[in-house]
């Protein structure tokens, strides 16, 4: 890019540039985005430091007592000051379970988005740069996959994994199976976007120059083309984080996600769903609200980022 030489006087220059950049300005001007960012940050802190923040450890069998089961939240009759949002049927603190649950939801969401981005960007680069039959095959696969909703693909991969590992072994790998199946259902969008920009970039002079001095194609793709096509990937990744979190929660709710011993937000809702009719609504509703709030905040951030990085809208 044109301001390549400027990199010399980083980091001070970079920091200064960032401070009066358009992006920061538009960020601070949009109140709702700031709120969304704060909420997202709170979730991250809560998830990262769950063992220190959570008042109870919901997985420490010695610490929970069945006598504390089904305690309602603080502001209702019969509540217990130790449990802010009440307890579930086994006496686990709902608030602590939400903190630990967000941890798993965010971890699965993040890892699957990263994996999807790596796979998608690489395939998109190769398809765009190499072209020809390679391009045709990759893009045809992408097209076929795009006609199916992500949730269906994730369910199928999970079903196949059960067949391969057996139901018992599956519990051991379930975290990675989830990451893998969600990532596989999301890579197409990255591949298509990156391929499109690669097609434009590969005819530019800097690529031709690199080719002329004999740099191997793989290095040209990674070192020269990639930095110039990576911009939109960030936007897709943010929006995809929300999709990945919802997909994980949905799979867990459907009973094919993480097991109740290591519950994510979706698993917590599944557990609580059984108690909806007996009056213990808080076991399902609070994790659900926590999930919706997280997804909403991430969605708002993604929306803002898309608009902020789109020069046409300024």
């Amino acid at each position, binding site marked *: 890019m044109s301001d390549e030489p400027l990199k010399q006087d980083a980091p001070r220059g970079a920091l200064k540039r960032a401070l009066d950049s358009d992006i920061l300005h538009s960020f601070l001007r949009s109140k709702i985005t700031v709120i969304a960012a704060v909420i997202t940050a709170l979730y991250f802190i809560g998830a990262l430091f769950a063992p220190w923040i959570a008042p109870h450890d919901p997985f420490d069998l010695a610490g929970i007592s069945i006598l504390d089961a089904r305690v309602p939240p603080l502001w209702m009759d019969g509540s217990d000051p130790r449990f802010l949002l009440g307890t579930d049927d086994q006496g686990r603190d709902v608030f602590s379970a939400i903190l630990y649950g967000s941890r798993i939801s965010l971890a699965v969401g993040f890892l699957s988005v990263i994996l999807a981005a790596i796979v998608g960007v690489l395939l998109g680069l190769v398809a765009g740069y190499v072209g020809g039959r390679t391009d045709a095959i990759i893009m045809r696969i992408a097209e076929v996959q795009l*006609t199916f*909703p992500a949730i269906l693909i994730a369910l*199928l991969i999970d079903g196949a994994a059960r*067949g391969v590992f057996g*139901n018992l072994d599956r519990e051991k790998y379930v975290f990675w199976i989830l990451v893998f199946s969600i990532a596989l259902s999301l890579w197409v969008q990255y591949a298509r976007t990156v391929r499109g920009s690669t097609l434009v970039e590969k005819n530019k002079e800097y690529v031709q120059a690199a080719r002329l001095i004999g740099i191997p194609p793989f290095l040209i793709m990674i070192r020269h083309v990639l930095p110039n096509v990576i911009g939109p990937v960030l936007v897709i990744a943010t929006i995809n984080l929300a999709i990945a979190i919802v997909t994980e929660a949905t799979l867990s709710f459907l*009973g094919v996600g993480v097991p109740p011993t290591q519950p994510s937000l979706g698993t917590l809702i599944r557990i609580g769903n059984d108690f*909806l009719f007996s009056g213990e609504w808080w076991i399902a509703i609070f994790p659900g609200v926590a999930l919706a709030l997280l997804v909403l905040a991430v969605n708002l951030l993604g929306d803002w980022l898309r608009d902020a990085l789109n020069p046409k809208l300024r």
Partner: protein
Amino acid sequence: MLAFSIRRLFQALLVMIVVALIAFTLFRFVGDPVNQMVGVETTPEQREALRERLGLNDPVIIQFARFILNAAQFNFGTSYQFKQPVAEMIGKRLPATLELSIVSAILAVLVGIPMGVYTGLNRDGVLSKFLLSASLIGISLPTFFIGILLIFIFSVNLQWLPSFGRGEVVQIGWWSTGLLTWSGIKALILPAITLGLFQMTLIMRLVRAEMLEVIRTDYIKFARARGLPNRAVNYRHALKNTLVPVITITGLQLGTIIAFAIITETVFQWPGMGLLFLQSVQNVDIPIMAAYLMLIAFLFVLINFVVDLLYFYVDPRLRAERAIK
């Protein structure tokens, strides 16, 4: 037009073959089909005989060809778990899923389009802003949680509507319908809203964006300059031209709705194909998984095909382009 259809048909066939390959791989290589069919006390000789009879010792290519031939006649063998023919089991549950999906799609269109038109025409109105914010929340709420909230409000607290099942159904030939009984209609309301809400917000946002685009065009300005009444400009001229993309997206979404029915059917214990598919994933009942995959792929391809032709039919420019080429 004919060349276009044939090319599309060829592409559709290719997609079906790819999907069939995946389904076949699932069936053949995920777990041993013979182990799933026999008991523990079966002797190795009996297993070998069954293997031979099922044709599992033939070359893989021949097995795949046989699989496709059978799939074309919707013959997917018997379920591992229920020991019943898969085609029959899915056929029994197809009406429930289709009724739910179609009612949700109609609901999404009937509510989504007017909301989109309204928010597009009154950009800065209070109601428009409210609807837009609400739609963002609607997109962020996972489908299953919407279902749970609706059950919590309307079934648990208000006790107006049932929270599970289809109610009474009436059998018309092989089709079972819940639309003819009062309890069937009551049972349909919550699932249909749950399933349709996401598409509704999608259609609303799409129509709004298209309206905003169209209103800026010259022919709308001209229509206003001619002194045509607002209503005629908005509905006869503007809305008509926004509908082409809306038809496409709605058509494509119908396929998504059928797949998302898996979630809604689980929340409401709706006895449709989605629930059957989910059970089959949990029990690794491969024949049902394979059959469901093929059926969904077929529906998707069919809908895509119809939408393509419809698009071609609705937009005269497309026809003109082809003619010039």
